[in-house]
């Protein structure tokens, strides 16, 4: 194997590992925020390592540039999306707390439906 191929193999396999780790986290972590953390790892590290690994195989210059652009998009967008989702999760958790505290006899159920298996 040439150096480029070895480089590709290592990084692609690392990337695949982080995807698996992300999936395990998404399925097994106890609450929403920690699952979001796992998702971010898969997003950033998994995809990033795969892209880095594919760079030696890409056509030069535009193929490689397109890959780098894709990686930048994924990283920037992944970060902003995770922040946005975390904000939404926090807001709903906050509202659920407010509603429970201010329960005035209305039967409005909490907006948060990520309790265990609450059928709605």
């Amino acid at each position: 194997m040439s150096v480029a191929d070895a480089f590709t193999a290592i990084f692609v396999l690392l990337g695949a590992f982080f995807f698996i780790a992300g999936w395990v986290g998404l399925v097994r972590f106890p609450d929403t925020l920690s699952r979001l953390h796992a998702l971010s790892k898969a997003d950033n590290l998994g995809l990033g390592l795969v892209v880095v690994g594919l760079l030696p195989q890409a056509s030069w210059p535009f193929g490689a540039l397109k890959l780098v652009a894709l990686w930048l998009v994924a990283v920037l967008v992944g970060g902003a999306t995770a922040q946005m989702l975390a904000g939404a999760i926090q807001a709903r958790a906050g509202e659920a707390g407010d509603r429970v505290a201010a329960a005035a006899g209305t039967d409005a159920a909490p907006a948060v439906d990520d309790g265990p298996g609450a059928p709605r």
Partner: protein
Amino acid sequence: MSSLLLIAGLVILLTVLLGLVRILRGPGDTERLMAAQLLGTGGVAALLLLGSAIDLTGATDLALLLALLAAFAAVTFVAGLGAGPAGAPDGRRGSAPDVRGEGDSPASQ
């Protein structure tokens, strides 16, 4: 080399397909959205690997498109929640009904 890329692509695709269990089980729409996001990112990675392995034109373009629009799906979901940062007033808007439906009393409390 291309076999390795193909196998890696298949493994990643399989992994994120297994993430579908999160879509089906929930609990909660946020988990479902996160599973969809994982699906999008894994799809991008699998497409890049597949495209590199069998030299598929357009695979990188499609991957770029998926990366852009996975973010868009998350935006749609959060905007649909009508939620802002913790403590901010939630979705007031023109004449459309409260988007957080499903048994919640309307936003104007």
